[in-house]
């Protein structure tokens, strides 16, 4: 029998139903973990952030930290926490990287370094499957566009939910998605031509 998110949340909060909470986690693990993987591009870090996200979720559901109001979809609320966890991680990495290290490029931030990492991903595109090539192309997107793609494509949030989560209008969220798709297509086409040429 399929139980709704609201029923599962109620079963966990009011009866301490452990199995109900497991169903919730497993139901949305792909969406949440896919988004985190897309943001940090590291499986170990994504696992840590996934766990950190649910520690915050459990605390908020028991009113220990934050507040959980049963409004809107439960996954949208959890995705907000996952996004905050990911941004906290990225900010901490940015601070660590902004410490002067004696390199010539010491002024570059984390976001400025993304093309370099994506460049490494470009090199791997020759030996990877198409979906890996797509992930690499998504990594090369500007952060705002990449986040919208991950939230809509992986986390299955609606554009309205994305707009509320990001603090922008729905038109802005839609515009970012459109530019992200156009940019992805422009990146994918040369890769495909290159693959065909190698064949």
């Amino acid at each position, binding site marked *: 029998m399929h139980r709704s998110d609201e029923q599962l949340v109620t079963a*966990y*909060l*009011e*009866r*301490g139903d*452990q199995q109900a*909470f*497991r169903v919730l*986690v*497993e139901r949305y*693990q*792909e*969406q949440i*973990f*896919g988004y985190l*993987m897309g943001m940090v591009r590291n*499986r170990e870090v*994504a*696992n840590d952030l*996934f*766990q950190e996200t*649910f*520690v915050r979720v*459990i*605390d908020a559901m*028991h009113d*220990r930290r934050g507040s959980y109001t049963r409004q809107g979809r439960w996954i949208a609320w959890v995705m907000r926490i996952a996004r905050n966890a990911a941004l906290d991680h990225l900010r901490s990495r940015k601070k660590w990287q902004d410490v002067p290290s004696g390199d010539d490029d010491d002024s570059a931030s984390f976001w400025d370094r993304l093309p370099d990492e994506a460049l490494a991903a470009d090199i791997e595109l020759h030996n990877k499957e*198409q*979906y890996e090539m*797509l*992930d690499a192309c998504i990594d090369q997107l500007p952060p705002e566009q990449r986040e919208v*793609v991950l939230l*809509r*494509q*992986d986390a299955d949030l*609606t*554009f309205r939910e994305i707009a509320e989560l990001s603090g922008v209008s729905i*038109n802005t969220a*839609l*515009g970012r*998605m*459109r530019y992200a*798709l*156009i940019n*992805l*297509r422009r990146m*994918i086409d040369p890769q495909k031509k290159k693959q065909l040429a190698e064949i």
Partner: protein
Amino acid sequence: MDKKLHIIQHLYDEGDSAAVEEALRDAEERLEYDQLRDLKAQLDQRPRPVPDAAVIDRIVALADKTALAAPRTARADRPARSGKSRLRNWSAISLTLAVVIAVGIGIVQMPVSDGASQVPMSSELANTAPADVSRDIPEPIEAAPSAPAPARQRLAAPLAEEAVVAAGEQRLMTELEEAESDMAYLDDADVAGLRPNEAMAGRALSAPVLADSEAVPAWEEGEALVELHRRIELLQARSADDRWDEPAVMSLDVLPTQPGTGSRIDRGLNTVGSGSQNNNNP
């Protein structure tokens, strides 16, 4: 919203399909839509990564531990109320309601004016109130049947004074209204060519019959009744010698020529003058 944004919404099964159909009539928009739709199909085919199973186990264990430590948000069902407690509640509500209604009625029936300011005046008026007036005014015994006699007298004195004043004012007003009404009626009769006595006789005939409750004089009109009674007695004494079958005015040729008949003629004229108002005989 821009047409291109409608296309994005439609790609992800959101938004208004009618707006998209309108946008797709444009060939350029149609081409972009087809290209983005192919790209989305490729994105949908990507395998979605999942976290390690150990991570999920740790999360569920933490959730279980937290749920055991936290108090349950759900409250236990309260026991059913017994019929006795329900009856007790209704009795208390009814009693409270009755008390409130009784107090409300008491407040409504209380006199508005301050009683303390009337006490000195009433004692003064009790000493100066005329005896005939206090005799005509019924005492408010029903309001205070167990009150002692001096107290009742003090209560009756200001009421008697007020009643006398009110009766006088009412009588004056009534007489003024009647006089004005008579004047207006006589004016109308003059216009119609009638004489005053004929007009007044006709008005008396056309006056509506008073109801029983209106015909009975009020107790405040005792003085007027006494005056009316005296007038009736005076008229009866004056017309004691007259008979109904006698003509009110006799022709000069039938009048006796003996001395002393002038007083009879005068009485006849007086009878005609008063009879035209009081008697409506033709």
